[in-house]
């Protein structure tokens, strides 16, 4: 390959690898590697979903892996809907995924603290009956 083209490819590729670090954001397919970089001093928030089916009285934990989502990915999706005040829309979508077979959905927020016990609370709940 010509020397000039080789230089262009090299500089472009290395700049692209570095750019997300400089701009502190992902520029897919080039990513920032900020996982676990934030200090965990003040507690870390995690969301999960509890569901109750129509012909059942028992609460079940919604398993996102059944739909190809990891627990941490579900956490981020819930966070996105919760903090943009669209959590009802999210619950409706979860009900739709379950073929409208749910009686109730609860969004559970857990905060893990480094110095003390974690806290758990239901931050949103929706009934479908």
């Amino acid at each position, binding site marked *: *390959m010509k020397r000039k083209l080789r230089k262009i490819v090299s500089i472009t590729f290395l700049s692209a690898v570095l750019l997300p670090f400089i701009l502190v954001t*992902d520029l*897919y397919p080039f990513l*920032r590697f900020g*996982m*676990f970089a934030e200090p965990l001093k003040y507690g870390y928030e995690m969301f999960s979903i509890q569901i109750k089916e129509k012909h059942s009285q028992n609460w079940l934990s919604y398993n996102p892996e059944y739909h190809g989502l990891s627990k941490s990915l579900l956490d981020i999706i819930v966070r996105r809907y919760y*903090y943009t005040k669209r959590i009802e829309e999210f619950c409706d979508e979860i009900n739709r995924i379950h073929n409208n077979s749910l009686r109730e959905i609860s969004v559970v927020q857990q905060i893990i*603290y480094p110095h003390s016990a974690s806290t758990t609370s239901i931050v949103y709940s929706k009934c479908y009956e």
Partner: protein
Amino acid sequence: MNKHTAYALAFVLTVVSVILFMLQPFLISEVVVKAYEGKSSSFITNLIDLIYPRFEYEKNRLGIDFFINKSSQILRRMSALFLFISLITFSYYRFDVFRKFLRDHLYVELVHKRVDVLRKILYTFFLFVASDLTHSLLMRTHVSAFYQPVLLLRIMGIPFPSAGLIGLLSFTLFVSIICVLFNYRAVLFSAISIILFVIMEGLHTSFGKTDHGYTTFMYVLMMFPFLLNESKTKKNDASAWPLLLMRVSICLVYLMSGLEKLTNSGTYWLDHLNFKTLLLLHPTDVGLWIADSVFLCSILAIGGIAFQLCFWLILFVPLRLKYFFLITAVMFHYGNVILLDIGSFINAWVISLSVFVDWEKLRFPVVKRY
């Protein structure tokens, strides 16, 4: 570039670096405050939405200080990068010893056997990756309402595909990988396969969370068509520059991961409490056992970050030490699996490290045949 141009460039970069560092508090605050209060111009709003879409909901969760700090970091990092490039440029042209040192250590000879072994290892693993990705995308067709395309896919206007289209993409990907494995038009099919991989992994990443599982593997595969193209040459002085780029990119990834931790958390990242919280967030049996020990939490935090900050030295160390670095890297990744349940034992990061191995010098039966 001649000596005088290089010195001029180094000087300009140093000046820009100093200006950026001095002006960063004034340049950032007003823009960030306006964006945070939703009073920015439409241009700034669109720009933020384009490169930092999470701002829309993160601003409801985090205080303004967080964003001012993040934005200042951008200018500080730019400033540091310019200063670094300036120093390297100046030293390269000023000191013969430095120039010779870089040339000696960063020249990677093109060895056809090595390229051949790498092609077989990486593309065999690629079959596994393609199958994993296909499976995951097919499952996500049920939750496509949560699809939020990454920048590249937004620009290309790619919606979440139907199961049939995912099947078609996967089939083409598998055929391309197999063609590379059988060395049939390998340059062409390696290029096709990386394009498809970027699109499919992009679809997978477009649900709000960045998945780093295949990142270094993808960087390596991005350069592989160039490596295969170079290996077609019969010249004796051919250089394996794409292989060097693969190595440098992996070193940069580890270095950037370490620097992210230090720039965001400072020395608190080395505190045992920080590591303990990490272990509690990703509970495993071994991790929870370690979480009770202040000593082990401190050692593992310091060891992890030291590894990430020092891995780039692998480019400059002798062969035996190189294998020490590689073994440490493998232990680091499997440590993450055991302690934090992050990744798996079939690990793309570990496979990507194969680009550091001089396969033709190893005495495995499979290599002996050459």
